[in-house]
């Protein structure tokens, strides 16, 4: 049975441990944005032993490239992008302390395994609900890679940002569970 939680970042191991696939979570606090290009740069920094633009410990990364804000707004529309493009980078970041990822769509077995091994979760946000999700973001600040435009790393402050647990720290996958229930063979 799906449960509902309110969580504030950074996430602890205890936060992650109680979450199960299908649970609904309202996130509060600071989350960071990064897409493919930024992920590549973050992993390159780790390889070079350099410091990242933000602390990964307990952090949540949101896979999003928002529209430009209208004057007076902190951000434009901001729904999730498809997550598999980050699959080759995510396990490395999880091993370094990343606790949550927000996106849409399937993850690789390597990502799911890393979620189990290092206690992390993958959240799904509703793809295409950019107007609705953008309203839950109260401030946005580019903290790295401004030249990447929509792909720059942003620090976001979110309030009651709605997500669903897709992959939990126990190896479960909501996409498989949900589909099996309604598939007609």
């Amino acid at each position, binding site marked *: 049975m*799906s449960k509902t939680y309110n969580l504030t970042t950074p996430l602890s191991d205890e936060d992650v441990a109680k979450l199960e696939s*299908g649970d609904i979570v309202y996130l509060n606090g600071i989350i960071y944005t990064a897409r*493919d*290009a930024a992920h590549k740069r973050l992993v390159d920094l780790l390889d070079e032993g350099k410091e990242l633009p933000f602390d990964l410990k307990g952090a949540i990364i949101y896979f*999003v*490239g*928002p*529209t*430009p*804000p*209208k004057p007076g707004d902190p951000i*434009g*529309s*901001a*729904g999730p*992008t*498809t997550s*598999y493009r980050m699959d080759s980078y995510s396990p490395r970041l999880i091993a370094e302390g990343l606790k949550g990822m927000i996106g*849409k*769509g*399937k993850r690789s077995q390597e990502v799911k395994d890393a979620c189990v091994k290092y206690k992390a979760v993958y959240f*799904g946000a*509703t*793809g*295409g*609900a*950019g*107007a*609705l999700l*953008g*309203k839950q973001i109260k401030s946005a600040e580019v903290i790295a890679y401004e*030249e990447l*435009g*929509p*792909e720059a790393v942003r620090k976001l402050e979110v309030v009651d940002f*709605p997500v*669903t647990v897709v992959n939990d720290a126990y190896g479960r996958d*909501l*996409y498989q*569970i*949900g*589909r*099996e*229930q*309604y*598939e*007609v*063979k």
Partner: protein
Amino acid sequence: MREIAYEEIVKNVRDIIVYSASHLPEDALDAMKKAYENEKSPVSKEVLKQLLENAQIASSEARPLCQDTGLAVFFVKVGADVRVVGGLLKDAINEGTEKGYREGYLRASTCEPFSRLNLKDTVGYNLPAIIHFDIVEGDKIEIEYAAKGGGSENVSRARVFPPAAGKAGIIEYVKECISDAGPNPCPPLTVGVGIGGTFEKAVISSKHALFRDIGSVNEDPEMAELEGVILKELNKLGIGTMGMGGTETVLAVHIEANPCHIASLPVSVNVQCHSSRHTHITI
């Protein structure tokens, strides 16, 4: 020969781009409401509700429905008895595109294939637009426009089958495509299927099929029937809204068929997410 001013094209293109980004067309909205009524899964139903709410917020506050405001795709029918004065039609469409994306605060998603850098400093904001021209009778210019997002484009595919594959081969191919895609292309989907022609003709037809109104009936009864068969098969997959599991995975299947070579049966599947931002104007 009728004359249309370059600036008039620019303005019209700009306006449809800005409007489409935040207003889901009636056909798509109706199809989503129908899916909401029919959906058996409570989780998918909840997500559909969120999407309908999103559409409401987007139109009332003029915010983009989705942060992926797409690449701008146009099918343009130019009447043989009309000419654009003051510049080229192609340039006018590109200029209108740039103005629309810039002035509407829409995301420029165009980048170079390998550096992944945005081209806006060299050719323009979210340019070049993807434009397909056709010449028709009359003295009007008809512009069909859609903002095409990346997530659904990424799961699209094409293949040239041997003729023996027939309808059964096509049904299986489309089913495999949507099944493999799962939650990634943001279902509930519209599935455009291009059949026949040459390789590229099938692909362009599958794109154009997505511009048709959801819920409209194919003029060719044989294709209308095949659309129904494929739709039924796809909704057996159980993928549901955003892959959460459910009965309403595909809103419609649209086929565009063309005569083809005696040796070939080209098939292309172009996938459209639930945010089916398409429109047309006649100038």
